């Protein structure tokens, strides 16, 4: 840990924090949209990690790191679309966004 540059340490700390917040949101919020937001937060935290390691890495002039981040953002967008595609019919079926109430697959 001590060999890392201080800027990198700060970025990683930020992304870890964001990931943790996103995870907490995904695991504990009752509203389905908020779970999606949490998932987006986790993905963004991973994006920050990509950028951080690109900036403080061996070859910052090449655009490899940015490509990773752009791919990740597009995947996140697609995945958000899929998530909404699941939530919207689920809302239409059960008339609520409360995830605790959608437990008809209960064993």
């Amino acid at each position: 840990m001590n060999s890392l540059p201080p800027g990198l340490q700060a970025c990683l700390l930020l992304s870890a924090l964001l990931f943790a917040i996103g995870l907490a949101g995904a695991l504990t919020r009752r509203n389905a949209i908020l779970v999606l937001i949490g998932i987006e937060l986790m993905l963004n935290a991973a994006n920050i990690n990509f950028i951080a390691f690109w900036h403080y890495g061996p070859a910052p002039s090449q655009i490899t790191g940015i490509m990773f981040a752009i791919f990740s953002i597009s995947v996140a967008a697609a995945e958000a679309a899929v998530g909404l595609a699941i939530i919207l019919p689920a809302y239409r079926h059960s008339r609520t966004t409360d995830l605790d109430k959608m437990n008809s697959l209960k064993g």
Partner: protein
Amino acid sequence: MTWIVRNLWLIPALPVFAAGISALLPQRSRRPAAGLAIGSMGVSFLLALFAFANALRTPGHQTFNFSWFQFGDQPLQLGWILDPLTAVMLVMVTFVGLLIFIYSTGYMEHDENFTRFFCFLALFAGAMLGVVVANSLLLLFMCWEIVGLTSYLLIGFWFQNPRAAAAAKKAFITTRIGDLGFLIGMVWLYAQTHTLLFYANGSGALEQSALAHMVTQTTLYGLTVSSAIGLLIFCGAAGKSGQVPLHVWLPDAMEGPTPVSALIHAATMVAAGVFLIARIYPLMNANSAAVITPTIALQVVTWIGAITALFGATVAVAQWDIKRILAYSTVSQLGYMMIGLGAGGPAVGMFHLITHAFFKALLFLGAGSVIHGCGGEQDIRRMGGLRRYMPVTFATYTAGMLALSGFPLVFSGFWSKDAILHAAHNWSISQAPFYMATLGALLTAFYMTRQVCYVFFGTLRLPSHGPVGHAEPHSEDTQHHGAGHPHESPAVMTAPLAILALCAILLGLIGTPAWPWFQSFLEGHPVVAEHEPELLAVMVTSSIIALLGILLGYLIYGRQPATRADAADPLGSREPHTFRLLHNAWYIDAFYAATFVRLTRWLGYLADFVDRFIFNGLVQIVSFGVLAIAWLDSFFDKYIVNFGFDTGWRSISLTGRALAVLQGGRVQAYLRYIGLALVALVIFLLWGVAR
């Protein structure tokens, strides 16, 4: 081998087929049943005539033997035989049988079981003819048993009447006792000669080599084996032919319909015993070369015949039922036949058998006609003066009565009885059978005259309002005898009577000493007519005896015939104790009832006890054991096996329910599990790397 000898089996088989078809017909098809029986009997009669003609041309025994099945290494053979003995019996049985069948269509017309009657009659006729043609003792025995069976069925024809059922049972059991001796004799004969065929080209049981073998061996008390076997077979004959002490079934057998009495218990079945002895006569007469006295077997036959002849005659004097008089008369006449066989040989006995068949059948059918005309009445005290109402029956009955009494010269009974008396007179062992037979002849004439006087002479004593007392059940005649007025029977019944009466007269011609055709035919060699003065003396004696008996009967019963039905018998009022003794047949039936019957009944109770408590108890114990095992098994299944299974499924159910808690249906819970699992995995991997 001629056609008739090869196909002799048809003669018994045709009536049996008729019986078989009749058995399948419904009760209302009377004409077909009667037609089948009479038709088959008619064809058998024609075949019998054909066989008779053949036997006239061809002397000796003609046999046809075949193997029935293999018994180890020996084939069991059966066969049939045509010889003079068979030929005369065939003609007699088929002819008398045919006449009685025709008579029965009239007599049984109003009976509702007409079809069954003719079925049984045809079966009887077939079986009797089988006895006659059999060349094997085994085949004879089988047909013998069928004859006994049909006799049982016919005596008990009106089986709802308990007396008839009891009489049928008595007949069957009594003859069965005799048949036991027959069977033992048959088995012994087979053991001695390894064949049951009578004549088989030298290897038969009645042929020279077998007889010589059996004569040389002796058994108990120096009796030769041939005599011993003959005596055992005579037991069967004694049962069937009603010799003392096995005579008890014959009088009771009168419970059957009168045609049955005529056919079976007068003419044919009871003659089967006599026929059997005549058939195995070579066996009974077999003596080693040096001995000239008659064999023990023939002596026993003669003595028993003499006792029976006298016994039957004495008892017939004191009877009131018209058929019982004739039944005891039959017992007596069978005794005569046995005397004839024992003392004189088969020709003498068979001649009396043939003549007796005709006149006894005539008498029984006449009695049936009387019973029919009187509306079912059978007690002679309630008849009388019937000669005015039933002239044809009277004339034929008188002919039969004179034949039976031995009226001299004209009637056949005289000639046949005379032959027997002559043989008894010449018997070297003793003269006692001759005297017994002579006394019996006197009594025969006496009781027949008594019967004729009571029935046909005097005043009519019939009660005006139908029959009372001893009437035959199912008697149909109350419908057309409203006035209590007897009438002559229809032609279908009187025509056979007339034919039989004619035969009763004419048959005498074939056996007179002047022309002994019958004897020469049966014995196979011409018999010289004897003209000894002693023969004439015997003829004169028997004529005097017969006429004396008739005169005595007329004096006591004919001059002042009874006018009231309840009048006592003139003889009976003078000697009441003797009369009662004779009426009850010397109390032999009572004796049997008190001893053998009681013993058997007691054995029956004992057997019932053993069956009910011991065998039944064992079965109950076994069943109880099985039930206990079953209960134990069910207990095991219900509590132990079920407990195991219940515990099993309950634990599975609990586990399932516990695991189902994890499946909450909440997505976020699943996510949490995934998160925890991931953390655990990472720690695990890092920990592994760190080591």
